[in-house]
């Protein structure tokens, strides 16, 4: 009997990260009348990073709404609409500008359900293009994941692959609470397999991107890819790195990290946000408090952004956030017990 032949491209359909997000938004707009997109220049312009693209042509300007340059107002309108029955996705042109809308996100959206004793729900999604590497300097390159992760009532996700970008956005849409999704600008063009149709990637669950026994690296967003590249090099030296893609900053997948550290005894946290008081601090503390503590065979290391704004000069900009060689050498030093 012949073996059943596989459809050649049944499951290898590839989309870019931004196409995957657009597909998710398109599915949502098709499936649910209550879904509206809001943001600056998301209509004919297609979004500053061409993420919304042609959605305005498919769904019209009533559902793909260009807002004035009014972040506080725009985000607040989205919150109010979510509170009263719509399912808005608000796109910040750059995550940096969320600073202008902190009030509505942090003081209003995040706390509404609680303040009202569970009687209200704010199912809004904030999309945030984030990160450095584009030469846009200090006010257009920041990584605020930890800021928002510090706010109970918000959920914060940070996909690293096209598949997760779509899955997490759909999960965010289904979620009854406000979700902030950080999209790394340098990932928008990255291609990868994206399943068809509606599916969700669970919020609060990490993914193991590589298995290894020597060192655990917890990374998020673009750092996952840098860590993978570093791990590849280290494998040639006999160092086996396990890579956990955090995916969600809040809630954080403690069990997976603790489990991995129990296995490897060594932990390196890699994230782009400023190192101090960042995601790595939380993960380190979590490990110190957990049963994984007894399995630690080296200090926990953090690689994060420099204690400085993102500089303009390209060399300085690179030096301001972890790069592949940084990850490689930190993991190597851990594995070789040099720290």
């Amino acid at each position, binding site marked *: 009997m012949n073996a059943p032949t596989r459809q050649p491209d049944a499951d290898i359909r590839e989309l870019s990260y931004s196409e995957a997000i657009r597909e998710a938004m398109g599915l949502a707009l098709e499936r649910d009348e209550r879904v509206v997109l809001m943001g600056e220049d998301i209509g004919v312009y297609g979004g500053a990073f061409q993420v919304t693209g042609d959605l305005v042509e498919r769904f019209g300007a009533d559902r793909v709404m260009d807002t004035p340059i009014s972040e506080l107002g725009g985000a607040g309108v989205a919150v109010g609409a979510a509170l009263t029955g719509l399912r808005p996705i608000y796109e910040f042109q750059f995550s940096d500008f969320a600073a202008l809308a902190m009030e509505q996100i942090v003081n209003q959206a995040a706390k509404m359900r609680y303040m009202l004793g569970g009687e209200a729900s704010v199912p809004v999604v904030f999309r945030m293009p984030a990160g450095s590497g584009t030469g846009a300097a200090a006010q257009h390159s920041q990584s605020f994941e930890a800021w928002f992760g510090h706010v109970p009532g918000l959920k914060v996700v940070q996909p690293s692959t096209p598949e997760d970008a779509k899955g997490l956005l759909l999960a965010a849409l289904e979620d009854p609470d406000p979700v902030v999704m950080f999209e790394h600008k340098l990932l928008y063009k990255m291609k990868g397999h994206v399943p068809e149709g509606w599916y969700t990637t669970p919020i609060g669950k990490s993914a193991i991107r590589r298995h290894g026994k020597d060192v655990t690296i917890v990374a998020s967003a673009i750092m996952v890819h840098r860590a993978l590249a570093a791990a590849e090099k280290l494998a040639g030296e006999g160092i086996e790195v396990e890579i956990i893609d955090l995916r969600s900053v809040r809630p954080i997948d403690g069990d997976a990290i603790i489990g991995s550290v129990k296995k490897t*005894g060594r932990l390196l946290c890699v994230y782009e946000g400023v190192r101090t008081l960042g995601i790595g601090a939380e993960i380190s503390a979590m490990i110190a408090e957990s049963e994984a*503590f*007894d*399995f*630690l*065979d*080296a200090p926990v290391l953090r690689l994060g952004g420099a204690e400085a704004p993102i500089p303009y000069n390209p060399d300085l900009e690179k030096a301001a956030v972890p790069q592949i060689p940084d990850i490689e050498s930190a993991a190597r030093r851990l594995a070789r*017990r*040099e*720290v």
Partner: protein
Amino acid sequence: MPTEVILPKVDMDMDAGLLAQWHVATGEHVEKGAALFDIETDKAAMEVEAPASGIVGHIVAEAGSRIPVGQVVAWIYAENEEIPDLPPGGTISGDTGAAEQEAGRNEVAEVPQPTAPAARGSDEAGAENDSGSPRPRATPAARAAARKSGVDLGRVAGSGPKGRIQADDVMRQQPVSSGPAAVAGLSEAAPPVDWAENQRPLAMTRRKGRAKGHPILLIHGFAADASGWAPLEKALGDAREIIRIELPCHGRSPLVRIGSFREFTRMMVRAFDDLDVAQLHLVGHSLGGAVAAAIADIRPRRIASLSLISPAGLGPEIDGATLYGIARATRTDSLAPWLKRLAARPDAISHDFAKAAMMARMEPELRAAQVELADMLFPDGTQSFDLSAAMARVDTPFKIVWGRQDRILPWRHALRAPDVAGLHLLDKAGHIPHIERPEAVALPLLENFRTGEIPVQQR
């Protein structure tokens, strides 16, 4: 009237010091000027000498405690003076600090005070600890493993940075399975143990140095392992990198069948070549001393200095009974009497010391391999190899340190060493001066290293 011994102020801005270790026990005789105890401050570690000759009647401060300057720590009584039951001023406990006693219970509390030489952490952990507590530097995983297996961290040599004890440093100190070993110990004639060779490279661990200078390579003796270097490493300080290679059939090195001393040496030279270090200071003890001399002969240009501690290879005599006794012992009670022969003062080897030593030798295969090795190297209790010619060719700074009370290899063998070798004969030391009197061994070694680092023309 007994003479009081106080904790002296040895440092300008010192108000208390860690009484690190006693060199004498209650009831012992001391000569005025002999080393009485070690103290450590934030900046220094030093020996305090006996202020009078006589009997140490009372020791009132425990090793490991932090004592205010000026406080009485012991009383020395004249030879014919009557020693009362209680010391004149009562006992003091020092302040190890409740928290540390709690946390360090499994490591520190079991340390055989006051005489066990390897009682403390493998490096300057104590000195760096503000409280002065001699807690070994160890990872959480190593501590957990030690707790579980009852291994005394104070006896484990750390392979991590600054001598930090890693989990696997502890693992190799613990029995692979305690069951069969215990059973084997019960039967009068243990059946011969089969063991298989394995082809791993020799075990090597390194501790980074703080300053420049050539690394120090340490080669231990028969039936020992790298952990035995801990006291000497501490005494040598952390300026230079320390590298330890474990002999075949020892410690974490593989078990192999070796036909000759030459073959044995060849394996070590291979490991030495793998180090990829331009020049280093070579230090060997006993059998390791003979191996070191052989390496120095084969790789003269890579040796900055040679230091041998009670080295083998300088005469036929050796206490074969002790070698076999140690190699064969299956439990602490049979090991301890042999170990006592290693030291100048038998009571230097406490029960706990022996227990820890036994822990490291619980694998029957390892013991069997060592017995075979002893058969080959020391047939009929005789040293089958002679390195006096090799030593005669050494032209780097060269020192030999030997204990006067060595009962395994008589120190008079040293007289067969070439005249270029400086000889340091230590009193109150047996076959393991680096454990019994680490500071006294470190002194000539460090001098040797320094000379070895001066360019030849300027020496």
